[in-house]
């Protein structure tokens, strides 16, 4: 069931959700109500998801450097705690990425939110740029984005379109904004 769209942003989000299901080979309308297969959706793209203890910009960089055996520049503030982190490296129309999610002290819902948040960035911001610039050059590019930890008094993330499907929860409430800014 496609949500009622009232703004351009909602249209883009709905289109991105439809696309991710299509790319993952899933029929959104055929899914039963329940938890969305988030990691199958992310798996439609060359993205690895990893849960990391004590996630910061610094630990994200250490992880990526250890795994890729390359220097990985990330934003400053190495000790800044993060809930999620997205890293994508592209060269010659080929790209690979990694979504890091803070593991410790985070509920499953919160970890899924962080992963879904980074997938949202990938779908709404990065993928369109990748496709617009495909074949236009040979320069490498790197994109990273961090999601801050929520404050202690902030509630758990709500159930958004990437969290539940089917029934009333698939009725178009846009709840994908992060709990912290």
């Amino acid at each position, binding site marked *: 069931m496609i949500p009622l769209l009232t703004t351009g942003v909602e249209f883009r989000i709905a289109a991105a959700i439809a696309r991710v299901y299509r*790319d*993952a*080979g899933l029929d959104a309308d055929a899914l039963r109500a329940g938890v969305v297969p988030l990691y*199958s959706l992310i*798996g*439609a*793209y*060359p*993205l*690895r998801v*990893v849960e990391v203890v004590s996630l910061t910009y610094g630990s994200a960089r250490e992880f*990526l*450097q*250890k*795994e*890729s*055996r*390359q*220097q990985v*520049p*990330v*934003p400053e503030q190495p000790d*800044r705690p*993060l809930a999620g982190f997205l890293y994508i*490296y*592209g*060269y*010659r129309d*080929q*790209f*690979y*990425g*990694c979504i890091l999610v803070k593991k410790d002290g985070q509920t499953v819902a919160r970890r899924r939110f962080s992963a879904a948040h980074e997938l949202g960035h990938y779908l709404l911001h990065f993928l369109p740029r990748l496709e617009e610039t495909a074949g236009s050059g*040979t*320069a*490498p*590019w*790197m*994109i*990273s*984005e*961090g*999601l*801050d930890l929520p404050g202690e008094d902030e509630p758990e993330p709500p159930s958004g379109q990437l969290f539940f499907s089917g029934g009333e929860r698939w009725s178009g409430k846009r709840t994908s904004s*992060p709990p*912290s*800014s």
Partner: protein
Amino acid sequence: MPLPKDPNWFRREATLGRYVSALDGGDLEAVEAVLTAAMDDPELAAALDAVHLAYQEEMQLGPAAQDVALVRELVRKHFQSAFADDQAVFGQEEPLTVHDVALELEYTRRVPAADRSANAQLLHNRQPVPAQLSLQAVKQLAQEVGVQASERFWKLFRDTAIMLGIGRSHQQALSAAREEGRLTPGGEETASGGHH
């Protein structure tokens, strides 16, 4: 300990021993001879790859791109006679293969015990991994190569391939930048980032 069934095993072991001694002693002629022999012996080539990775780890070259670049320069300088061109030395311009991923899994000791036989088979497979490393593409690859392995193994395979892809793309970009004289101190040309 049971003896290996492969009659060439002892010969390869001896060759590897000579290779390591030659590397340690700076005997470039002996090194070249072994590398040449490996061109016709995929098993030996795979074993040499493992030795190279072990050296790389031991020398802590991993995270430092400038160290990798330095080694690239040294190898290019000293091993010209063994290889036709720079690309052949590291295979960086070659597509990432099933062999590359299997070797990395072996080297990092991430292969689940039940899947060791499967990974050993994949070490012989030089088929490129899919350019789009999605779950579906890796499932398709698993069917194509005809090797039975657990779902967990193929997840590890995909994760490892993605990280190797990042590393190889970095190296290709660095290599191209060096050749064109446009390498920046950070080794990157285009970067953007943010947080919220």
